[in-house]
């Protein structure tokens, strides 16, 4: 699924990385625990989170994640935005809650990383 499709179905506002909306992702992962992201995720994954500090961007940077979607109307802080810009990362904000966001994406065909058999 392309990032621009995700933007459209989530009624999301794109905050950084507007020029990189043609990147494609295969999976989504929802978490506020960054160590879980570091444990399970691969680069063709979009991260859904409600956590707005710079460690989220750092975590995404380490894992080469394509995009971060902040749920339930949350917006990342200024330090996060600066880091995201520096790393060419796409950041979107959706008004939907984590559960609803996940449901919309799953329904549209974007699967979870469970498919990869990485969760034991």
């Amino acid at each position: 699924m392309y990032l621009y499709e995700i933007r459209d179905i989530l009624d999301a506002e794109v905050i950084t990385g507007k020029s990189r909306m043609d990147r494609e992702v295969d999976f989504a992962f929802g978490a506020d625990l960054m160590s879980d992201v570091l444990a399970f995720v691969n680069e063709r994954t979009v991260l859904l989170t409600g956590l707005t500090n710079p460690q989220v961007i750092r975590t995404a940077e380490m894992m080469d994640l394509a995009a971060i979607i902040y749920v339930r109307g949350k917006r990342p802080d200024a330090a996060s935005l600066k880091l995201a810009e520096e790393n060419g990362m796409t950041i979107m904000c959706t008004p939907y809650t984590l559960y609803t966001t996940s449901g919309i994406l799953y329904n549209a065909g974007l699967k979870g990383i469970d498919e990869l058999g990485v969760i034991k």
Partner: protein
Amino acid sequence: MSQKDMVSLNYRVNAEDFAKAGDASSNTKKVLKKLGIPSDITRRAAVVTYEAEMNIIIHSNGGEIIVNIDTTKIQIIARDYGPGIPDIDKAMQKGYSTASDHVREMGFGAGMGLPNMKRCSDEFEIESKKGEGTTVTSIIHIPD
């Protein structure tokens, strides 16, 4: 990189310096990318370095991260000045953590740090002495 070339990086990491958390790992990752190390290897090294950096910031009195890169491997040494890990077996258990609520609010302290580091390493070793400090050494092989 020619056979005899070796790149060595050294970062000082201060206790509770959350503002700079991730700087050492981010720099390391950029260097590995520049050297043309495969992206999956780079990512594993980035996870090890980042978890090590967070560990030093969260749990220690400060320390350093040394990254040695040659044509065959990446060696990451994370060394701190105490207080040491009382029970390494416990610390290696998934889900075990002594982190504060403040740290958990930042998305860490899930008890996955050391297990994550081990999983991403080909060789992994922890040495810790109470009152003196902890040294974690990780080696990741670079395939031909």
